[in-house]
């Protein structure tokens, strides 16, 4: 790791003032620190966001869920309040990385990195979540802009994630057995108006995406069988040493069925 300077602000404003083109926000650090150790990133300054109260805490009021950006995967996975209204989401958080990684990694850090194999983006797209930052609010659709790319400006930081709990939600992923990242993960949710959201992680060469075909099929019949005749177009899907685009296309269908099966 190249030399860097560590900062520990206690407010969002203080953190934003420290930000610059060469600096990086440090949340749980479970991606950033390994990247720095490989010298693939060399920020001049690290701005630790773990000690800012405004970024912490989970609130669930009725069906409205608000998760502070600095909440860890472990806090989300074990939140009885979220589990009560959106169990698919807590299941997803409880299957990121491993227990030690979940104790440190945060939802804000994960979505700001927008790794194509990260889990949360699929859920936030499917749920139609809102991403709050220190300067504005963005729909998940507008926030995730591509591979490791988001709409965040240089000094901007995610402060919270908000969504309305659906009637049913489920997540299923096929993990790479070595990295534990999703080779394909599918989040499904059914809302009270009957509409359905389907988000796909780990498969798109442009990052997570929604699947309108699967959403339409499930809107009429929210059962695994409804996806039986769906065929997913492999163009636009990743092909790498782990799986071909065709294999991932099939995984989307299989994980989609399992997610529907598990949805509660």
């Amino acid at each position, binding site marked *: 790791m190249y*030399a860097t300077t560590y900062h520990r602000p206690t407010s969002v404003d203080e953190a934003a003032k420290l930000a610059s083109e060469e600096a990086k926000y440090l949340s749980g650090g*479970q991606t950033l620190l390994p990247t720095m*150790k490989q010298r693939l990133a060399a920020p001049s300054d690290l701005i630790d966001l773990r000690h800012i109260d405004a970024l912490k805490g989970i609130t669930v009021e009725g069906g409205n869920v608000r998760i502070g950006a600095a909440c860890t995967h472990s806090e989300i996975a074990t939140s009885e309040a979220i589990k009560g209204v959106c169990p698919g989401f807590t299941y997803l958080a409880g299957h990121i990385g491993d227990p030690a*990684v979940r104790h440190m990694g945060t939802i804000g850090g994960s979505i700001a990195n927008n790794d194509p194999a990260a889990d949360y983006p699929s859920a936030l797209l499917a749920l139609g979540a809102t991403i709050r930052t220190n300067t504005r609010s963005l729909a998940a659709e507008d926030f995730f802009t591509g591979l490791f790319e988001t709409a965040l400006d240089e000094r901007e930081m995610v402060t919270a994630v908000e969504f309305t709990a659906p009637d049913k939600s489920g997540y299923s992923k096929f993990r790479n057995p070595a990295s534990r990242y999703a080779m394909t993960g599918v989040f499904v949710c059914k809302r009270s108006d009957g509409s359905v959201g389907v988000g796909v992680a780990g498969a798109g060469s442009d990052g997570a995406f929604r699947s309108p075909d699967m959403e339409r099929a499930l809107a009429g019949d929210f059962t695994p069988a409804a996806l039986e005749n769906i065929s997913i177009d492999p163009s636009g899907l990743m092909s790498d040493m782990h799986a071909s685009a065709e294999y991932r296309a099939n995984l989307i269908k299989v994980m989609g069925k399992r997610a529907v099966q598990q949805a509660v």
Partner: protein
Amino acid sequence: MAEITMTVNGRTVSGTCEDRTLLVQFIRENQGLTGTHVGCDTSQCGACVVHVDGKAVKSCTMLAAQANGSEVTTIEGLASGGELHPVQAAFREHHGLQCGFCTPGMIMTAVDMIRRHDGKLDEHTVRSELDGNICRCTGYHNIVKAILAAAEEMGSGSKVAAE
């Protein structure tokens, strides 16, 4: 440079290190506590697991500066007065180690796991909770056995204490 003060195994320690110093380096090189191991250095193997403020974390994936002001427990902090911690004793009893390199991380992970599950563990849970710890010798079987035995021992111990 960072001025670090933290509690390590109940003792307040201070030291100066670079801002980029990893927690595991601070523990091993600055504090001389070499029980915490570095296996992969890529957050995969779990040999470096310690507890920070009561939670198991990979000390190769945390800066010492991030842990400034925290309470850290390492493998050296588990035994009390020459008596092994129940998890350590169970690993010895059930041959939960061969070369021993992964053992500090396995035991720190096991203690955290037993605490989070309130001692109520089954084999499937133990195996999936060991996701972040790699052992190249044992095939995990005796590690799982040791953790289940320790969980039972600790569970029954707390029951006795409660009565």
